[in-house]
């Protein structure tokens, strides 16, 4: 006798990407965006101005001049709230620039490789293989270490390996799209190849690629923090959560808030981006 067995999940409770979770994630992300874009205008912060008298103040303490240090101060007496808010802007700017660069390069090379096939595909695919074989963060460290510190260098260092995921996705989708009859029809008419790609391929690739962009954004933000933590990222004149975490690592037992607060901020941003990304992948994942 045959019976249909229903296997119960080992972990019935799982943070799945339901619409409610996705909405919550989107709201959290919107808050980060708002803080990152508007916050620096409201909360002035000077990373070079230090105050020895106000060193290592805990959360909610009052400074010498009577003002409130809402989230405490770090080892040089700098305001933690200001660092968090300005760091949010840095993370968002870097994340968006890296993803935009990677998306543009990856989409262009991926669709070209998939559509033209032949030698173009071989060349681009081997380049992808080589970059995949190399840990992306290691490559970023090498590149960031070779040049002077700066925003542009960080964006470039993180983009060099980051476009590969976009290119692989775009290439795979293009391979299945190029044999669709509407593409054949365009070729028969004699529509120029760049127009065929832009008009008949890319509109069907852009959805899944956008979904991927969210997860790549989270990765870029994490990598930037990693580079800055190592001192290879942004110059100290620009606030970055990675730097703040690094600054606080000597005080972990006495002033935990210096490392913990930017760490929490980073976690919140990455997790909510990931949850939203899962949801977008479900909705836009297929090419039609």
């Amino acid at each position, binding site marked *: 006798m045959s019976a249909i067995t229903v296997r119960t999940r080992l972990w019935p409770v799982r943070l799945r990407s339901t619409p409610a979770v996705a909405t919550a994630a989107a709201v959290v992300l919107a808050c980060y965006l708002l803080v990152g874009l508007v916050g620096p205008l409201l909360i002035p912060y000077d990373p070079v101005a230090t105050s020895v008298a106000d060193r290592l103040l805990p959360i909610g303490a009052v400074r010498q001049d009577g003002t409130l240090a809402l989230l405490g101060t770090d080892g040089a007496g700098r305001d933690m709230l200001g660092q968090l808010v300005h760091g949010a802007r840095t993370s968002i700017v870097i994340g968006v620039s890296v993803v935009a660069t990677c998306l543009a390069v990856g989409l262009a090379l991926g669709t070209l490789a998939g559509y033209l096939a032949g030698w173009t595909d071989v060349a681009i695919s081997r380049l992808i293989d080589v970059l995949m074989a190399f840990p992306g963060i290691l490559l970023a460290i090498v590149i960031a270490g070779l040049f002077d510190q700066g925003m542009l260098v960080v964006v470039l260092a993180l983009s060099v390996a980051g476009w590969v995921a976009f290119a692989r996705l775009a290439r795979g989708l293009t391979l299945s799209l190029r044999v*669709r*009859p*509407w593409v*054949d*029809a*365009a*070729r*028969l*008419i*004699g*529509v*120029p*190849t760049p127009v065929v790609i832009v*008009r*008949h391929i890319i*509109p*069907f690739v852009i959805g899944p690629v956008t979904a991927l962009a969210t997860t790549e954004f989270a990765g870029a933000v994490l990598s930037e923090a990693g580079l800055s933590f190592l001192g290879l990222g942004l110059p100290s004149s620009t606030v970055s959560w990675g730097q703040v975490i690094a600054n606080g690592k000597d005080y972990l037992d006495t002033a935990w808030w210096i490392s913990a607060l930017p760490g929490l901020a980073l976690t919140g941003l990455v997790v909510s981006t990931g949850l939203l990304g899962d949801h977008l992948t479900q909705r836009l994942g297929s090419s*039609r």
Partner: protein
Amino acid sequence: MSLIEVRDLVVNFHSRRERRRGRPNAVDGVSLAVRPDETLAVVGESGSGKTTVARCVAGLQTPQAGTVLFDGAPVGRVAKRPPEVRRAIQMVFQDPAASLNPRMTVRSIIAETWRTHRSAAPADRSWDDAIAELLRDVGLDPGVADRRAPSLSGGQCQRVSIARALALRPRLLVCDEAVSALDVSVQSQILRLLAGLRASRELAILFITHDLGVVRQIADRVAVMHQGRLVETATADDLFERPGHPYTRKLLDAALDLEGA
């Protein structure tokens, strides 16, 4: 003279190494010709290579050997063809919905042909008027122009495909199983439409199908393919009255069985 002629066409989809090991050709030395005013049907079972022949004629597939002659001159794959030749050979595909870009309106799908071939674009009136007339010619309401493929039926999609092909005033229409995905009543509507267009537009048609009923409705001559080879070419009347090749007889018997059942 023939409008299009195919000589000794050979296509093999296997890799070079597998070919040396004797993997069979998908198309194995096929020669056929279509005159400027006739409908030639190519019939055969799945895998007989008939679609591959059609794609070679259209230039979407590059053969390993053999030539395709248009007006007596050899033509290569579609990207290498002169614009006039490219314009003259258009195709209608099997899958009605996938033949049209689902994100584009019917209007922009047809206008794309004229944007690419300025010489075929209507000069004396607006493109919108010309599109409306074209849609009427294929039996569609001009209001369809603003709709996209997902909101059209299979038969409507196929009519739009035909309109797109006709927009370039082609001399040869390659129909690759163009009615196979449609139900029978729509099939005969489309076939009647094609027959009418052929008469009014001086069009030759290369019609690929596995359906002998369709052949009887539209074809002047029939080429029968079996395992990549051409086994028989005859006028449609002759083929149904006096099938020459045993395989043709088998095909006809199978079709009769279906009709009788």
